[in-house]
């Protein structure tokens, strides 16, 4: 047996189990879901009708679902931007910190991941309610109120950004740790301001990490379920809860399956497009 063949067989042997599991638990269910999406009226129709793309056409032509999709995309962009706004300084601080409490700070960032999304959302419900911590403080300080935050898009924005924050911080911090402080120091010694140093030196060097963090946050936000349901309330609509509602509450599996595939396609397309746009931006020479 040639060495090349042996290496190939070893690779196949190592990849095989993971591939088999992926096929069994991802591709097979996705195939079934796709079949359901082509069966308009399923389960009431019991799959007796002809397979067609009519369900997709109906959903795409329906302003109600388009509105939900648009809200989801805008929310995912907003959540990513808000999480990035807070994650950048925290990641910088952690990466450059020489403090002996650095591991404690890091633990403080990771700790929220020990608590489930739903539990954290319930915490936000208490904090953002009409008689919650936020309104009590604001009203107490004489800034008017109480303000209606819970069961609005603002509450979802805050709650989901908090969910994504640890992932963003950890991704950015690991990238920033690899950038030598000497490079930034060199830039400053050559007369650049701290902001110029950050924009022209640090940012290009951390760009790929930034891209990874934003992609992660965007995908998580597009598929968010617990946070929009608990903090957005009955009138706020995003794709995750809408899919669940169609399948579980309205018993309309085919529309739920169509929405699921549209969400997968839109998330993939936008992720690729954003990656390409940002990569092009990174590759462009800094001025």
């Amino acid at each position: 047996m040639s060495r090349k063949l042996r290496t190939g067989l070893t690779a196949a042997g190592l990849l095989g189990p993971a591939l088999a599991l992926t096929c069994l638990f991802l591709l097979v269910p996705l195939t079934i879901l796709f079949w359901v999406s082509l069966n308009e009226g399923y389960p009431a129709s019991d799959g007796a009708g002809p397979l067609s793309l009519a369900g997709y056409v109906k959903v795409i032509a329906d302003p109600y679902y388009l509105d939900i999709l648009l809200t989801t995309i805008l929310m995912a962009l907003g959540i990513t931007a808000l999480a990035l706004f807070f994650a950048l300084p925290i990641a910088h601080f952690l990466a450059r910190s020489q403090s002996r409490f650095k591991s404690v700070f890091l633990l403080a960032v990771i700790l929220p991941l020990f608590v489930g999304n739903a539990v954290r959302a319930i915490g936000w419900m208490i904090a953002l309610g009409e008689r919650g911590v936020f309104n009590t403080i604001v009203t107490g300080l004489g800034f008017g109120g109480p303000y209606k935050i819970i069961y609005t898009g603002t509450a979802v924005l805050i709650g989901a950004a908090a969910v994504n924050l640890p992932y963003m911080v950890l991704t950015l911090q690991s990238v920033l740790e690899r950038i030598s402080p000497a490079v930034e120091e060199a830039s400053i010694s050559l007369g650049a301001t701290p902001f110029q140093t950050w924009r022209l030196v640090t940012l290009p060097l951390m760009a790929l990490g930034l891209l990874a963090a934003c992609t992660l946050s965007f995908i998580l936000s597009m598929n968010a379920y617990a946070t929009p349901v608990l903090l957005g309330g009955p009138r706020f609509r995003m794709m995750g809860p809408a899919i669940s509602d169609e399948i579980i509450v309205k018993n309309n599996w085919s529309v739920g399956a169509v929405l699921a595939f549209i969400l997968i396609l839109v998330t993939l397309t936008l992720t690729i497009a954003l990656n390409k746009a940002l990569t092009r931006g990174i590759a462009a020479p800094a001025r």
Partner: protein
Amino acid sequence: MPITLSRRGFTAGGIALAAAGFGTRPASAQQQRMVLGTYGGDTQRYIEDLIVKPILEPKGIATVIEAASDAPRRLKLQAERRLPRGTYDVVHNQAAILYQLYQDGLLDELDVSRIPAYDKILPVVKTGYAIPHTVTARAILYNPAHVSPAPSSYDDLWNPKYANKVGLINPHYNMALSSAALTSGGSMSNYEPGKAKLLELKKLGVQVYPSNEAFGQALQTGECWIGLMIQSRGIMWKRQGVPIEIAYAKEGVPMDWWGFGIPKNARNKDAAYEFINASLTVQAQTGWAAAMWSPPATSTGLDALDPQLSRLMELPEAFRGKLLDVDPAYIAKTDGANKEWWDRVFKA
């Protein structure tokens, strides 16, 4: 002295242990196992305390409780419809959903000869496919500090004085629609007139809460002053200190009920009948009434109820002749369209 164990000895020991394990199997097999699909929280706790522990466990029936809301349970039954053996042996659902499940061919027609207390079930909630567990009246909950005089009609929710302080609950869209229908020429078998009426309420200002608990909290904090709810919840919240009173509508008092059904593909139907019979015992019926403030569904349960408790749950004299049945066939026929309207038009 150090113990040395050869590979052969280790294997032999393992086999011996496994054999010992097999040996214990017949003893555990004597215990039957059943799976109940029910609600979580208090409902699960009281089913365990009133039915499972005192009645089923002494008979050697171990009950596994799978807690979820109505909709996921229905979904699972439908997803498993082609399987010869499903997850649930007994399902606990609202009357309209039990009817839908039965219509969809997912529930067994009950063998009433195996249910000795079947004749004692109140006629208004007696069916051939489900055993009622709790019955409760629809009520108007209001905060007397802000709502005066006390409401006497569903139409009082449309009083402009209470704009933005009226609460409805998202999963109870049928309750909102039917109440609006009753006050605008509709009936329990025709919710259509209620749609225009609800849009008037939307124009005036109405809060839609995601759950019973959120509505209860809003009543507690004063964010909401008046809304629709079942009587048993009203009594529970009032006793917990929520500043509310309970009123009923002159248009009629719909009776909602919840019960148990046996799926066609249940694994252990013998245990399922044991569970159903246990739920109909006087002990379980009165215990439930004392814990959850909803009247028993059997005449024997009603007769045995503590008079003080009975007074707490009984309807005022004027409303006893105004009880209305929920029409499950109408709900099954219109539910999809009504939910669409609720989501797309009312909540938009």
